[in-house]
């Protein structure tokens, strides 16, 4: 008994450690590469806008766009030169008076919808958004139907007089 509980604990600890190791591996960002491509050695540094409102709007929009080099980061988080360039694009376009939705469209026109970090809700992505709930609802319906049919099955069970008498006998015996 003791051996069993020790080996059980060791197994739990090992599984936990593997889980931590696996998730740590995933949080490492791979060096930016697009099938063997490279990033610039020196990104061009541009002066930031003096306008705090533009800076704030830039930051807000930058969080909504994906860095295509480090694809699991936003262009706000990423240090990749392309991210720097795109942030500068946003900044200068905002300064020129473009709206956020115009700038978003500018990016989508060039890079596709993948650049939107927040997946839009439209005809193509509707299935992804609603799908899980539909499947959940379907599973619940299936569950309810199964329970109901099982209940009916139990109600329809007919027992003969002999079986009932035997059952009473057994019950009397066990409940003194």
């Amino acid at each position, binding site marked *: 008994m003791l051996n069993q509980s020790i080996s059980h604990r060791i197994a739990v600890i090992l599984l936990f450690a593997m889980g931590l190791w696996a998730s740590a591996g995933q949080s490492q960002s791979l060096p930016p590469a697009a*099938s063997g491509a*490279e990033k610039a050695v020196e990104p*061009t540094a541009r002066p930031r806008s003096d306008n705090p409102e533009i800076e704030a709007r830039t930051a807000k929009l930058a969080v909504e766009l994906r860095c295509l080099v480090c*694809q699991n980061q936003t262009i706000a988080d990423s240090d990749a*030169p392309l991210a720097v*360039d795109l942030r500068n694009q946003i900044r200068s376009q905002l300064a020129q008076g473009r709206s956020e939705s115009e700038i978003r469209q500018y990016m989508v026109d*060039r890079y596709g919808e993948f650049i939107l970090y927040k997946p839009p809700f439209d005809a193509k992505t509707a299935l992804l958004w609603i799908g899980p709930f539909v499947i959940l609802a379907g599973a619940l319906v299936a569950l309810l139907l199964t329970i109901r049919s099982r209940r009916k099955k139990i109600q329809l069970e007919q027992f003969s007089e002999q079986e009932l008498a035997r059952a009473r006998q057994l019950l009397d015996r066990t409940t003194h």
Partner: protein
Amino acid sequence: MKKFFLPFALFLVVLGFLAVGLNLNPREVPSPLIGKPAPTFSLPVLGKNQLSMGSQDMRGKVWILNVWASWCVACQTEHPLLVEFAKRNSVALLGLNYKDTPQEAAAWLARFGDPYQLSLEDRQGQVGIDFGVYGVPETFVMDRDGIIRFKHIGPLTPEVIEQQIVPLIGQLNA
């Protein structure tokens, strides 16, 4: 037997999705510009002081734009293929020198060979952004009307050149 059929069928469906999905490259971002006109640009020509060239200059010709840079190591892999391909003279091959300096670009071409009819200096990368460039190298094929017909992400390989680009150029030239 019927009891086992449904789960097995579902398993085959999942297997089918995995077979397709696991063979896809998740890092590849397909270009939304295929079938759309190439962005207009006007850029200085590498090595030719004061001369600039614009997108409309290529109208009426099928042409290839190869995005490269002297700091790009992966470009060295594909470069010999481009040098060889250029010798065939089957199509106009232009380079887009992306986020580079003219001195280093010229030195790189002197060292590795210059397959390009000319290279355009995109020092700030703005034209690159207009083309949807997100890594180097990338290669675009444009038809006579200036519509982007093909984009290859990453270094070119002999297979891509022979099986995709050459036939496409044949089609576009017909």
